């Protein structure tokens, strides 16, 4: 099923890749099963007409995706239109040189269907395991990304920083596809420094939006939009915003509640804490009929402004593969077509579409033409 994105919004799935026991039958998938399931889910995302699949990066059980480009490379070969992304790529503990090369390579393999989301990671021991100090989290994210930017944009880089060995005349390889770096989102839960960084570069800002109340993210996104304009990338409403979300659906809302409750009650992060009723009221988690999910998510732009990308977390907490695939069918068939129409209503013409490689290449080419048509400077 091919879908033309006519609204400018991109929809997709992001996964943390947890291996969690199914609380309803006490079975736990093996790492191998879970990895294969993630690959199956990613292909399903394209099949049901969504645009994006984003994979987390973790280096501690119970999470399996330690090597995102390996998995995304496989998915690239199995899909035709799907944009492959991350949620998130650890800009703190990965060497930016390796990120530059891995994702430029993936760009070539996937014919440009690649972008990334930078994150700092929230697992303390990962920093020392990779030779870093968690107290340097923000400075690492700032410096490593500054280097990554240059590696993708300059053919030969001389570099000296605080956190890695210097580079002299280094060329990362391969060069980005068509000479255009992958689009980058910056994800943050609470740090204004990261919103500032995203705004400075004119990059996207992604609010995970899953675990916290919307008021918090409204402030953070509002700040990012304001700073995006400050740095001269366009008006505040032209900034590139992505949101996370979470849903579980059944035809009758009471069936959804009944079916999802054991998974909610035992889920990593919020399980054994607040009631599902409190959590669905206080966060974007929506458990109910497809119409309830439509109503909830169609309302998001009232809080955050018109935005570019909506990702859903659908495959965690031990939900079996069959259930996840059914959920994706409901999402693709009943929810997203309606959301596309809702988001297209009264969407101002200057609000950008979700980022694609083709659009970035076209923008670069247009800028080149514009600069060539300006009168040449007279040499003195």
């Amino acid at each position, binding site marked *: 099923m091919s879908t033309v994105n006519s609204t400018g919004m991109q929809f997709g799935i992001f996964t943390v890749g947890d291996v969690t026991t199914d609380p309803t039958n006490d079975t736990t998938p093996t790492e191998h099963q879970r990895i294969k399931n993630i690959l199956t889910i990613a292909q399903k995302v394209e099949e049901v007409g969504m645009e994006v699949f984003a994979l987390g990066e973790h280096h501690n059980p119970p999470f399996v995706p330690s090597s995102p480009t390996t998995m995304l490379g496989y998915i690239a070969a199995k899909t035709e239109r799907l944009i492959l992304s991350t949620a998130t790529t650890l800009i703190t503990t990965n060497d930016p040189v390796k990120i530059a090369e891995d994702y430029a390579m993936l760009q070539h393999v996937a014919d440009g269907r690649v972008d990334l989301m930078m994150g700092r990671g929230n697992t303390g021991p990962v920093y020392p395991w990779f030779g870093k100090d968690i107290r340097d989290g923000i*400075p690492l994210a700032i410096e490593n990304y500054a280097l990554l930017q240059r590696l993708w944009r300059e053919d030969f880089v*001389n570099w000296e920083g605080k956190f890695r060995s210097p580079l002299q005349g280094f060329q990362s390889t391969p060069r980005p596809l068509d000479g255009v770096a992958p689009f980058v989102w910056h994800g943050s839960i609470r740090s204004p420094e990261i*919103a500032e960084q995203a705004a400075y570069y004119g990059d996207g800002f992604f609010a995970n939006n899953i675990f916290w109340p919307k008021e918090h993210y409204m402030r953070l996104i509002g700040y990012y939009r304001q700073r995006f304009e400050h740095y001269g990338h366009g008006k505040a409403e032209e900034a590139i915003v992505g949101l996370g979300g979470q849903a579980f659906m059944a035809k009758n809302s009471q069936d959804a509640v009944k079916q999802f409750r054991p998974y909610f009650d035992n889920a990593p992060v919020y399980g054994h804490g607040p009631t599902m009723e409190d959590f669905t009221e206080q966060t974007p988690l929506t458990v109910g009929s497809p119409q309830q999910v439509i109503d909830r998510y169609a309302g998001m732009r009232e809080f955050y402004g018109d935005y570019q990308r909506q990702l859903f977390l659908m495959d965690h907490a031990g939900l079996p593969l069959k259930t996840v695939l059914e959920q994706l069918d409901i999402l693709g068939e009943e929810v997203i077509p309606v959301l596309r129409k809702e988001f297209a209503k009264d969407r101002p013409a200057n609000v950008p579409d979700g980022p694609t490689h083709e659009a970035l290449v076209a923008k670069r080419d247009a800028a080149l033409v514009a600069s060539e048509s300006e009168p040449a400077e007279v040499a003195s």
Partner: protein
Amino acid sequence: MTTRKIAVIAAGLSQPSSTRLLADRLADATTRQLQDLGVDAEVTILELRDTAQDVVNNLMTGFPSPKLEAAIDTVTNADALIAVTPIFTTSYSGLFKSFIDVLDPASLTDMPVLIAATGGSERHSLALDYAMRPLFTYLHAQVVTTSVYAASSDWGSNGDATSGALPDRIERAARELAALAAVSDRSSRIVDPFALPAGFSPVGGYGAQ
């Protein structure tokens, strides 16, 4: 007449509790002492048991419910704080500490604080000085010199010559807190949640320009 906001935390678990009883006495005494200084007191008393479930949920999810957020704002935006806990197993109660744990660690900086506790036996009175006081010192609060410990027996005794009876100790502690509260401007401060650290650069300081 100027007004100062006084927040009172009472971490007692029963209702009514002697912890709340002590909290009320301290709040009343502080209000009187402030009036003597020409300042009105606006007192808000928070019984932590009302938000106990919310505190646990916050520990697990990382965010407060609207009800708990309102309680946290009351505490952190006050001009002065009266913190009263029962002493359980040699220290402040778990609920009291859990509430402190969900606060932003910088949110009590400069806060004038009166610490007080209740217990079954006089023998736990030093818990105020080895547990409560270092807790608030760590948070950069200004803890007044006199702390008030009320054992069950204190509610019916005349005390001793050096420390006085419970009402004397309450009055002395309230006087110390009122002196700091009267000149506190914490409740009228505007905090920018997006303030970037001094010297922050979005490209870093090393070779990135």
